[in-house]
């Protein structure tokens, strides 16, 4: 989708404004702490309806204000071109508001409140790149699960519901284990846990499998020859491919077209049987420890580098989290975001809106040169990027329109380089 117009009210330090965005995008230039990241956060808020930095909603309201409100006009193509009639996708309006009192949160799409906020996820089709992304590689597995959960909740129908159900059942089962409840009381939750968990496992596995080739080639291009390995390690003993376990889904298994409910249930079934069997085997261990030790809540997906030649590295490659340099970790994180953009393209049939928050700041000159080339080719759609200095805006041969930001005030009159 292309973001044509953005209306800001009471959000962080940003001055209230209605901004018209060029179809190719814009480069926002300003010194640190002037509001560059807040601007991208505002746009991305309308994609996931929460802060990308994990800030609580009411803390996004500007000091002294009662509420914030964000509204985007999104649509196909250039804003100057009149929209063709017929079945061309029409433009839409996505809005979110949070009121301090209550607090009350309201999300609308074309003026209508969806039944659940989850139904409005992903309308913008935006993908945010920040220097913080390195944590996806450097931090613990929880960061990576969170990343995958957001990408799949936004782009894979049925995932969010299965995940919520899984979490609810898991909380109940763990409460029973914590209370040292009798065996039968714990087991009562197992068919439900296996049913919901099966779908979470299956969809995560499909995403990693479908994305592995892209991950490999992006890492190869940016690093100048090192091949990246993205692998899924389910938090259930065995793992896809092991004897008695369901095979990994076929190539391209990430659902561009979602199977219907009946079909989906039958695809889930082998994963459910596998998980249910593991739960049975692990029951006594779970009861001793007072918590559920296996399941998708213990999933991990690892990023590594393929060994070159005789290097006797383990299967799955040398683990980047443990052995990667700063530059290698940043490269892998960037590759994950590019995978996310590819997922949006596959799901929505339109290039993602790329939000690049000072992404070249931490990369060495060689890598950032190659990232530039890669993004220039990948980013078929609109790009909104931020940089501290004019000289840092090299994207698209310096031709992006230039805006300035200072003290939360955005000046749109600037000239391209």
């Amino acid at each position, binding site marked *: 989708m292309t973001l044509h117009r953005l209306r800001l009210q009471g959000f962080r330090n940003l001055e209230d404004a209605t901004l018209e965005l060029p179809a190719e995008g814009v480069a926002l230039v300003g010194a640190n702490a002037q509001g560059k990241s807040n601007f991208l956060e505002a746009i991305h808020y309308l994609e*996931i309806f929460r802060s990308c930095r994990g800030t609580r909603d009411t803390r996004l309201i500007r000091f002294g204000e009662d509420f914030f409100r964000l509204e985007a006009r999104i649509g196909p193509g250039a804003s100057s071109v009149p929209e063709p009639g017929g079945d061309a996708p029409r433009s839409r309006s996505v809005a979110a508001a949070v009121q301090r009192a209550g607090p009350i949160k309201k999300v609308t799409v074309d003026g209508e409140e969806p039944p659940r906020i989850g139904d409005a996820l992903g309308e913008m089709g935006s993908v945010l790149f920040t220097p913080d992304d390195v944590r996806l590689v450097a931090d613990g597995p929880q960061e990576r699960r969170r990343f995958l959960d957001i990408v799949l909740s936004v782009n894979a129908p049925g995932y969010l519901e299965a*995940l919520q159900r899984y*979490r609810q059942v898991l909380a*109940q089962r763990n409460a029973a284990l914590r209370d040292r409840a009798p065996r039968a*009381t714990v087991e009562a939750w197992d068919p439900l846990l296996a*049913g919901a968990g099966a779908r979470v496992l299956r969809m995560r596995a499909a995403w990693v499998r479908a994305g592995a080739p892209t991950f490999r080639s992006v890492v190869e291009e940016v690093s100048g020859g090192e091949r990246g390995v993205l692998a899924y390690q389910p938090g259930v003993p065995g793992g896809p491919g092991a004897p008695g376990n369901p095979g990994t889904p076929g190539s391209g298994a990430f659902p561009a077209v979602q199977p219907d409910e009946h079909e989906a249930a039958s695809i889930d079934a082998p994963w459910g049987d596998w998980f249910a069997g593991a739960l049975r085997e692990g029951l006594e261990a779970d009861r001793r420890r007072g918590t559920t030790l296996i399941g998708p809540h213990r999933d991990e997906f690892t990023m590594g580098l393929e060994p070159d030649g005789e290097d006797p590295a383990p299967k799955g490659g040398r683990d980047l989290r443990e052995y990667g340099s700063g530059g290698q970790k940043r490269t892998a994180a960037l590759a994950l975001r590019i995978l996310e953009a590819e997922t949006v393209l596959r799901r929505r049939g339109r290039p993602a809106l790329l939000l690049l928050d000072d992404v070249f700041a931490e990369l060495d000159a060689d890598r950032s040169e190659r990232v530039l080339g890669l993004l220039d080719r990948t980013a078929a759609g609109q790009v909104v990027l931020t940089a501290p200095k004019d000289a840092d805006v090299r994207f698209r041969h310096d031709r992006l329109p230039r805006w300035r930001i200072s003290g939360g005030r955005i000046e749109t009159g600037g000239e391209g380089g």
Partner: protein
Amino acid sequence: MSALDELVREFGRLPGVGPRTATRLVYHLLRGRREDAHRLAGAIEALLERVRPCSRCGTFAEADLCEVCRDPSRERSLVCVVEGAFEVQSIEKTRRYRGLYHVLGGRLSPLDGVGPDDLAVAALAERIESGQEGIVEVILATSPSVEGEATAVYLEGVLRPLGVRVTRLARGIPVGSDLEYVDGSTLAEALAGRREVRAETPAQAVGADHEDMLLRE
């Protein structure tokens, strides 16, 4: 606190009644005839005095046994297990069910400290084992929520060894909804299409807010 404010507060505790409605109700009582208000107070008193759980099935009764349990025309080999007495009333309204009931008094929820001992599970097993009623089939009509499903799984494990047929309401009841909000014909169909319990449940939607899921693990 004034008597007026106190009654507003009490009305406000009732389900579906907000402070505005509560206030309106109290002013209505004050403006109306005094005997009307007395009658309401008397009806509440009588309710508390006369209504008790049925000693057999646990639904509300004004005698030792409820009307259903006393009705000789009801099919005694069939027992429908529900979470609360309110659901008995919902199913009765369909006029399509001719068996008896058993009220659990809740559903399994370890997070809320509710285990099997807090529900009328032992009483149900006793009804079956005693053989007095000749129970052949038990229909599990717990709600299609996660907790209701787990309760059904648990009951199946308890009941199957007792040699009775165990069935579950058919799908068609909107997932995540409570029986109380299901219309009569849907409920009647679900009863007619009840199925044998199998230890497998497909993933289903729940109505929790997405915020929770995105923020924490």
